[in-house]
């Protein structure tokens, strides 16, 4: 029997090249173990069975080049340097091959086993681009496989070829720059005595003026790179164009002018906002109508169990209650809101709608130091903050992701909306709710301006607008499942443990102690009755829980008989703005690490406290 070894395959390519489609095409299917994007690694991994082999598949972030100028590029470069893989599949969108080959040339400089996948070959042919893959194979010395990933065509051949290249360690031919540059490369290698197999790569990158590589090699700073940087990049660029001309022929294809007309109609001026807002409205409407319906059905039996449990005395029952509460918390988030949202996102993310919305919202988002793309997590946040945090991944830089994550915490999700409706809506009327939401937007705007003043501005918008593409439903289910697993296995268990922890508070009957401990804060600063202290703590678990706890604490559902209108408003303001719920906190932590989570919690709590305190003077 042959010894079975895991083959590690990494997917590298430019944004929108269909890399993730390939990943999802095989990942959703026969997946045995999965890792998820975390704080240390920014790439997605999965293990799959392929024939009798086990493949570990790594999806690197999409990058246009490998210049370490932004975080996605840096994380791809680090991965390639660490070398924990057997082969790299370079995925190329064949319809824009001329500009994609530049990344290919950069990958070749890493001198690693490689396979090229010419994806979306059908779209290229529609555009009149015919590629001779044999010629490309000869030129680079590595296998080239044509594919249409979204239809599953060519995937099998691609992975066969990748496994073979991994086993034979088939590397591409190295290419030469002009004589002058080559002399400098050699000089640089000698001077810094970098002669191992990555020596050439390091010399090229140092001469290119790449800050990351320069920091890795002692003495690299002294190498004069001023003039060569531009020459090297331009030469590589020219070589990519030349290669394209050699291997591809272009016939006059039918170019779609209809798409341009649609774009001009939908996206010019105010129509861009109208188009985007209609899209958001449709998404939110679908999520809320579906979510509310499912939530009722899913929570009814659990609420019955909770009701039943509350009749029994004893610590055991309290712990069980905590367990059920944690399960219910997950169900209340994942089934009704996360699932439909992931479904719609998966359906539309390759359809070309989101980049167009980013374009439409660019002007307005620049006012709070962000660019157009960040509008998407904000809107998602109204449904639930958890998927909103997840969706910050679409932003290019870590600092933008963090800014958006901070502000998203201020957006009232559906759970907080319930509290707002039950408190302000019920006791203040419809217009009070409208005013409250405008006030909320105002606070987000001001906070955005303040954060913008304290941090570096988002770079100017420059993104590709891909063609409109119809979604492929079978891929959508795989994607949704792949992402839902993330919540079920990573966040939910922590939510349940947290819930049990809170029920321990009840078991040891320290509610009163907590209330009197918090009294200086609840009574003194927020101007709320001290019995509400514990409800604010429970709100961390699930925001709508704080309202149920409130009714339990004051012993009546008629809140206005116990609290003044001012107290009701202050309670709602505090609940809306303070610490994001536990599930959100877990996600911030998983995505951005502990220090940032602490910052986010403090940020929210300070804003909530300040606003609640200030509203004492108004109401």
């Amino acid at each position, binding site marked *: 029997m042959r010894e079975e070894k895991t083959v590690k395959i990494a997917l590298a390519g430019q944004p929108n090249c269909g890399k993730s489609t390939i990943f999802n095409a095989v990942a959703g299917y026969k997946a045995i173990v999965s890792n998820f994007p975390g704080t240390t690694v920014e790439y997605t991994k999965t293990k799959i069975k392929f024939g009798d082999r086990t493949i570990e598949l790594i999806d690197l972030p999409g990058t*246009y*080049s490998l*210049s370490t*100028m932004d975080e996605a590029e840096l994380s791809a470069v680090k991965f390639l340097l660490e070398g924990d893989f057997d082969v790299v599949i370079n995925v190329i969108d064949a*319809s*824009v091959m*001329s*500009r994609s080959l*530049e990344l290919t040339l950069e990958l070749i400089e890493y001198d690693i086993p490689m396979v090229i996948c010419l994806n979306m070959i059908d779209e290229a042919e529609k*555009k009149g*681009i015919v590629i001779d893959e044999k010629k490309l194979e000869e030129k680079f010395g590595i296998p080239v496989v044509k594919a249409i990933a979204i239809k599953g065509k060519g995937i099998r051949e691609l992975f066969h070829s990748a496994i073979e290249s991994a086993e034979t360690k088939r590397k591409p031919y190295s290419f030469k720059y002009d004589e002058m540059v080559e002399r400098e490369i050699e000089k640089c290698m000698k001077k810094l005595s970098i002669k191992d197999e990555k020596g050439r790569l390091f010399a090229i990158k140092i001469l290119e003026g790449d800050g990351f590589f320069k920091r890795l090699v002692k003495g690299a700073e002294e190498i004069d790179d001023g003039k060569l*940087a*531009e020459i090297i*990049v331009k030469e590589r*660029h020219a070589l990519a*164009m030349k290669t394209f001309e050699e291997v591809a022929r272009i016939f006059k294809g039918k*170019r779609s002018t209809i798409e*341009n007309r649609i*774009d*001009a109609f939908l*996206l*010019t*001026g105010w129509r861009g906002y109208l188009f985007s807002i209609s899209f958001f409205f449709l998404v939110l409407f679908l999520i809320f109508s579906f979510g509310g319906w499912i939530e009722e059905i899913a929570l009814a039996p659990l609420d019955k169990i909770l009701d039943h449990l509350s009749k029994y005395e004893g610590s055991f029952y309290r712990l069980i209650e905590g367990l059920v509460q944690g399960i219910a918390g997950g169900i209340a988030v994942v089934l009704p809101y996360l699932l439909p949202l992931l479904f719609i996102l998966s359906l539309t993310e390759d359809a070309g709608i989101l*980049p167009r919305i*980013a*374009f439409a919202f*660019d*002007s307005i988002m*620049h006012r709070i130091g962000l*660019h*157009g793309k960040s509008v998407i997590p904000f809107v998602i946040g109204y449904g639930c903050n958890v998927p909103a945090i997840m969706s910050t991944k679409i932003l290019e830089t870590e600092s933008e992701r963090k800014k958006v994550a901070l502000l998203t915490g201020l957006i009232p999700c559906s759970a907080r909306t319930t509290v707002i409706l039950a408190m302000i809506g019920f006791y203040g009327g419809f217009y009070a709710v409208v005013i409250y939401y405008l006030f909320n937007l105002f606070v987000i705007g001001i906070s955005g301006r303040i954060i913008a003043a304290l941090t570096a501005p988002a770079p*100017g*918008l*420059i*993104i*590709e*607008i*891909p*063609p409109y593409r119809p979604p492929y439903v079978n891929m959508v289910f795989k994607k949704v499942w792949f992402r839902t697993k993330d919540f079920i296995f990573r966040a939910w268990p922590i939510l349940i443990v947290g819930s049990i922890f809170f029920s321990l508070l009840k078991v040891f009957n320290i509610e009163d102690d907590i209330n009197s401990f918090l009294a200086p804060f609840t009574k003194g600063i927020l101007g709320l009755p001290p019995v509400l202290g514990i409800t604010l703590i429970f709100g961390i678990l699930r925001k709508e829980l704080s309202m149920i706890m409130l009714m339990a604490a004051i012993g009546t559902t008629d809140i206005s008989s116990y609290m003044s209108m001012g107290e009701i408003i202050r309670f709602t303001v505090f609940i809306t703005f303070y610490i994001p719920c536990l599930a959100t906190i877990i996600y911030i932590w998983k995505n951005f690490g502990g220090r940032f989570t602490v910052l986010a919690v403090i940020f929210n709590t300070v804003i909530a406290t300040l606003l609640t305190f200030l509203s004492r003077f108004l109401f």
Partner: protein
Amino acid sequence: MSIADIKIGKRARVKEFVGGWGLMRKVMALGIDPGDEVRVVVGMEGRGPFIIENITKGTKIAMGRGIARKIIVEEIE
């Protein structure tokens, strides 16, 4: 003239970039090169970002006004 000055629908040819090296690399990586034929698909006079079509490469790129001003073009009759 720059991309920000082309009338909607009119074709133009990219001549050069006048921005910094970092920006230039980004623009090149997105496949905009001197000699390429481009056209503005979406954009308004005076304010807001643009969507331009790179006719030579068959791609579309959205860019802020600041970046558009740094890409110098000449109109094609």
